[in-house]
């Protein structure tokens, strides 16, 4: 069974969002998503200053087999993008919840968590799929 850390929120399309002490939100994809994708070969991420929107595509991730969309769990502005992933996507596979983070986002509003799944909700989605 895939790990679902309790310290963050989830989107049904398998992205996570974690709030930092400074109010900045870090996002990435879940262990389940990473294992479904298999071996990764390429990722495209937005740069600093670009806007992302709730449930809208913010980038693309490509495995040996296929391309998949990355959807944003919240609306806001990118303040940092994990540039090391452009060279090697291994951290996404090996450490999807830590080293494999993708973007740090300044949320457009404080209510972003209300639209997301709790860890328990997401875990039950995984169990029922």
């Amino acid at each position, binding site marked *: 069974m895939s790990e679902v850390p309790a310290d963050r929120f989830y989107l049904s399309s398998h992205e996570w969002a974690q709030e930092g002490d400074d109010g900045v939100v870090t996002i990435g994809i879940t262990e389940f998503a990473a294992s479904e994708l298999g071996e990764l070969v390429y990722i*495209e991420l937005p740069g600093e200053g670009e806007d992302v929107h709730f449930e809208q595509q913010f980038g693309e991730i490509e495995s040996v087999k296929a391309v998949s969309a990355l959807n944003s769990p919240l609306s806001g502005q990118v303040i940092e993008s994990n540039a090391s992933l452009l060279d090697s996507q291994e951290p996404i596979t090996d450490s999807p919840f830590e080293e494999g983070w993708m973007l740090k986002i300044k949320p457009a509003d404080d209510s972003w968590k209300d639209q997301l799944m709790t860890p328990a909700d997401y875990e039950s989605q995984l169990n029922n799929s």
Partner: protein
Amino acid sequence: MKKTVLNSAHQRHGARLVEFGGFEMPVWYSALTEEHHTVRKQAGVFDLCHMGRFEVVGDDPVTALDKVLTRDVSSMKKGQVCYSLVCQEDGGILDDILVYRLPDRWWLVVNAGNRDKLLPWFEEKLEGAHIVDHSESLAMVALQGPLAVGLLAPHIERPKGRSLETLGYYRVGAATVNLTGTPLQGWISRTGYTGEDGFEIYVDSEHAEAVFDALVDLSDDVHPCGLGCRDTLRLEAGMPLYGHELSEQIDPISAGLEFGVGLHKTTPFIGQSALQEIESRGPQRRMRGFTVDGRRPARQGAAILHEGKVVGEVTSGSPSPTLGVAIACGYVDSGIPEDASLQVDLGRQTPDLKPHPLPFYRRETEKV
């Protein structure tokens, strides 16, 4: 979704299952790239039960087949296997298949996704012959890779004491398969879709799971392999895949499959005059191979550009585990010279395509 008789074996071996050709099939067991290298360097086991296995029955199956297949079937010898196309009147490809001339009967192996389409087509077009569909009752598994012949030979008995080593490439014969503790009567052919030496084994479906497991257990060097690596292996080997390089809108001449067409064979076949015409005026587009600059693979449907204009389309693309670069093939307008500068439209980027001769990979010793 349909399942093959090996579905529970795939689950036991830890496969990730996906839909392919209407069947739930393993895309990989451990990892695609690892399985790819297993087949190039050792040997891999594949479930091919999703493919259609048709017997052609009738008074004169040779003439009946010659009228619906592009290949000159009448010249096939007993024990020979041939690649052929099934075409429409306009030359568009309905399927690409293998034709097996066994000592006393004729078989066709067709693509999974085209099984349901071909049955009524053959029913209508075969004159004086009909198809008996053995796809469910007869299983098909492959052992592919340089170690295949050595590992399999001790377990295969052939008529008149012939060894497995003497079965030529694209040859088929009866075999007693001694893999499961009980001798099984079946067939074996030296065929495959990987660009490596290897075999396809046909036994009754009730024994499929035991044979599959026994093949995996032949040696620590053998692993079950999914359709994911089957796709990268065949792409490197320059072999077309129906639904990608081939379709009803594409003819075999444009696809570079002239070798599979008896253009001037004496028995007229469906599509012959259309194909002769395409041959004589030259196809409007041609299949070409490329390496893609940068890390990102080009995928099916990506536009191929020359001086900013669309001049073609990618049909298949993937990272090549053997070459270590992204490779692609696709159709390009015939008027575009070989050395013209081409790019591929990947959204934000338009990396260069460098021409690469097909196939991308050829094994060192082509076994005969």
